[in-house]
């Protein structure tokens, strides 16, 4: 254990701002990638639902015509 206290750990020997800025932005960026990936999947699912509804409309129309 290199640090005596929680304060010392945050302070990082005076370089706290730089170290935590670097780590913070890095993991924020990684989190954004993960979230974006999950969102993309949800969007695909919605697209599927929309397509399904479109097909149902088409089928109904066909039934009405015939």
């Amino acid at each position, binding site marked *: 254990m290199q640090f005596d206290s929680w304060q010392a750990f945050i302070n990082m020997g005076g370089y706290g701002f730089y170290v935590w800025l670097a780590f913070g932005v890095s993991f924020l960026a990684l989190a954004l990638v993960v979230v974006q990936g999950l969102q993309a999947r949800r969007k695909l699912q919605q697209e599927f639902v929309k*397509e*399904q509804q479109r*097909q149902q409309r*088409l*089928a109904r129309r066909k039934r009405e015509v015939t």
Partner: protein
Amino acid sequence: MSTLLSVSQLASQRAGRTLFADLRFAVKSGDLLHIEGVNGAGKSTLLRALVGLVELQEGTVEFFPEQNELAENWRAHVLFMGHKAAVKTELTAIENVELLAELGGVSNVDTWDLLETVGLIGLEDLPAGQLSAGQQRRIALTRLWFSEAPLWILDEPFTALDTFGIELLHTKFAQHIAGGGAIILTSHQPLSWQGAQFKRIRITGADDAGF
């Protein structure tokens, strides 16, 4: 009678929609194949897929399956004309025809004579950009007169042509077919064709994706 083109199990999709599936046909010399279908049915896609401009999802296209020496270099023996005329608007009709002939590997073409045949007399040395769409199309169509390719694949060849032009093309088609060639074409106009080997394929563009 030799087979010029044999197609099996052709399938294509655009934007996830099935345009055609399990399409199979053969074109023999003397055939005129008319591909029919409503707008967006995939007629152009089919023609472009035949010559490899559109990637095939499934199936095989074989040119000249019985003549190896032609099959190896089929691009030299198939003439494709799409929607776009491939005419340079900056160049004159004469220059366009000369360059087309040179690219087609035909020397000794009487370009003036040819332009007269397609009805562009008096317009030979005007930049093609100053001509009408139909006239530009006629410049492109001169390829049919000097090309020696046995198989023609024509996408909407009658577009923008007047009745005289359509008549002219009909005559040319008849000549080509009588000479043992074959034609595949798309057209919205009903073709009045008396030839024995007139075939039709109808693409429905059915959305049978299974929903």
